[in-house]
């Protein structure tokens, strides 16, 4: 479609453009203008993205405590230290548990909300807004509400008040790793904050499913409900689901705010970024080991992204351009 209109309109254009050509000069030079447009961004990218990555690659081979211009080369020692560090390896385990819970849970919740909202005939915009509203709240503010009010370990916390109605004693939700109630707090914060965002993506995808597929299914005798959901809706949402799961996974990997604020200085429930934060910027200021840890994480994220891209055929359309 677009090629036809383009040809139709652009064919008279060259005739007009020809006399304008002599005036082009430097101002019309494509390569100069390319750098003019992309230059500021590329310089920033080089300075603030590529330089830190390369610098930390360099730092990771040195003993760099309290200094960023070290001179003692230690080879791979920092990597060995990090990979044998119980806390750091443990943090990867913490992340795995976290991702295994939060990714499927958020996927299911946001899809469920999208299906519900999509079927509403009245007040659809209202309910969509309600579920979407938490996206405005920061992880810090939400952590504060969860820690200070809902899951406050004392008697007047909302959850304890509620459970008190059934004669259940106060629970210290965050102050003790055993039983690990803190997972409930951490998972619900993120679920509340994220579900509405992904719901919007699913609603957009649901509205792109051609209606005649359902009609054809109805003619073939499929019952609306579970059958059409399983055989039409879910397969049609495959691309969106893939994207959502990838986004959720990368977001979970970078979880920091709620762990930092909910658990503050506790030694349990530390995901990788928290561990790195205390390692590199805490009392020891060990930039060498911190950089090695950051690079290990980066490689892991790249591997996961590429692997999932391979499996799901993500980004294939991009390459063909």
């Amino acid at each position, binding site marked *: 479609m677009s090629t036809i209109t*383009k040809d139709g309109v*652009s064919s008279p254009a060259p005739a007009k453009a020809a006399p304008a050509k002599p005036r082009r000069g430097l*101002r019309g030079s494509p*390569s100069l203008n*390319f750098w*003019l*447009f*992309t230059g500021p*961004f*590329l310089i920033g*990218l080089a*300075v*603030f*993205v590529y330089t*830190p*990555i390369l*610098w*930390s690659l360099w730092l990771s081979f040195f003993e760099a405590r309290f200094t*960023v211009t070290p001179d003692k080369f230690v080879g791979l020692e920092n990597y060995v230290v990090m990979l044998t560090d119980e806390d750091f390896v443990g943090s990867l385990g913490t992340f795995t548990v976290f991702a295994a819970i939060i990714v499927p849970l958020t996927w299911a919740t946001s899809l469920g*909300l999208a299906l*519900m*909202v999509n*079927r509403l005939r009245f007040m659809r915009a209202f309910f969509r807004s309600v579920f*979407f*509203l938490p996206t*405005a*709240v*920061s992880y*810090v*503010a939400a*952590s*504060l*509400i969860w820690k*200070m*009010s809902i899951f406050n370990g004392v008697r*007047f916390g*909302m959850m304890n008040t509620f459970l008190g109605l059934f004669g259940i004693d106060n629970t210290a939700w965050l102050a003790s790793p055993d039983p690990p109630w803190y997972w409930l707090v951490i998972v619900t914060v993120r679920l*509340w904050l994220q579900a509405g965002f992904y719901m*919007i*993506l699913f609603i957009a995808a649901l509205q*792109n499913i*051609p*209606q*005649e597929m359902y*009609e054809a299914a109805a003619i073939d005798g499929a019952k*609306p409900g579970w059958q059409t959901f399983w055989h039409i809706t879910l397969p049609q949402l495959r691309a*969106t689901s893939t994207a959502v799961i990838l*986004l959720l996974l990368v977001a979970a990997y970078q979880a920091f*705010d709620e762990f*930092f*604020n909910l658990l503050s200085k506790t030694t349990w429930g530390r995901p990788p*970024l928290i561990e*790195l*934060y205390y390692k590199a910027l805490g009392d020891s200021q060990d*930039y060498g080991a*911190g*950089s090695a840890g*950051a690079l290990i994480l980066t490689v892991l*994220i790249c591997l996961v*992204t590429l692997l999932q891209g391979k499996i799901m055929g993500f980004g294939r359309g991009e390459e063909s351009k």
Partner: protein
Amino acid sequence: MTTTTTPPAERVEAPARPRRVRSGSVIGSTGLYVATGIAALLFLIPFYLIVRNALMTDPEITGEEWKWFPSEIQWGNFTKPFDDPSVDFARSMWNSAVVGVLHTLGTLLVCSLAGYGLARIPYKHANKVFYAVLGTLMVPTAVTFVPSFVLVSSLGWIDTYRGLIIPGLFSGFTCFLFRQYFLGFPKELEEAARVDGLGYMGAYWRVVVPNSLNFFAAMATITFISGWNSFLWPLVIGQDPSAWTVQVALSNYMTGQTITYHLIFMATAISILPLVFVFLFLQRWLVQGIAQTGIKG
């Protein structure tokens, strides 16, 4: 292609609707609304708690008996965060506003220009440059905070607006989204501008930007929200209380020596207020922006 076939399909579906309603789905529909309503109530509880706690006295919040509403609304609580000497709340709000606005303007300017250059200016190495940008998407910025901190501290930018804002401007993802958007921008408009004697820059500012305001608004909304809510970078950079953003200030309330509930919740409410306004008035662009970023992302 699909868009042209769907409208008639919807018309065909219309007679099917009454059938569905008759076959006992009044109950189904009521059930749907009940379920949606319960979910909505659950989602609103945290907002309710902010307002409740912000407008109560501390003895009422911590009292023996749970109170759903303050016995007397404490409007005076509104000024409490600003009077508190331990945390300069007004300063932190101001810092967040400055950082949020400049972060948004800077990101849009730098990333949109680059996105346009990559999408529309013919240059033989453009693809290589594009892959250099795409490569950064593989490395989440959060993971590079240690080396970035090292760099920014050696520039002497700790506790400055520069340090808070500039390193975050060069988002490969935002640039990528602008490129995708400009790829679909109608070429005829620019060609007309070029014929009229405008250079690439002239055509960009006079024709392309004014015709893309919807997309710019969507990107601005998303960028502002993520800037206002970001925590890790401001935490690392803002070491002196005078450079705290509001998120860092909130975080400090939680670990403070004495906890004054109504003050903390009032501060939280105030910190969320600007974004609630954004949501109320800019939701259209926000939803559009998310749908766009999500599909691409």
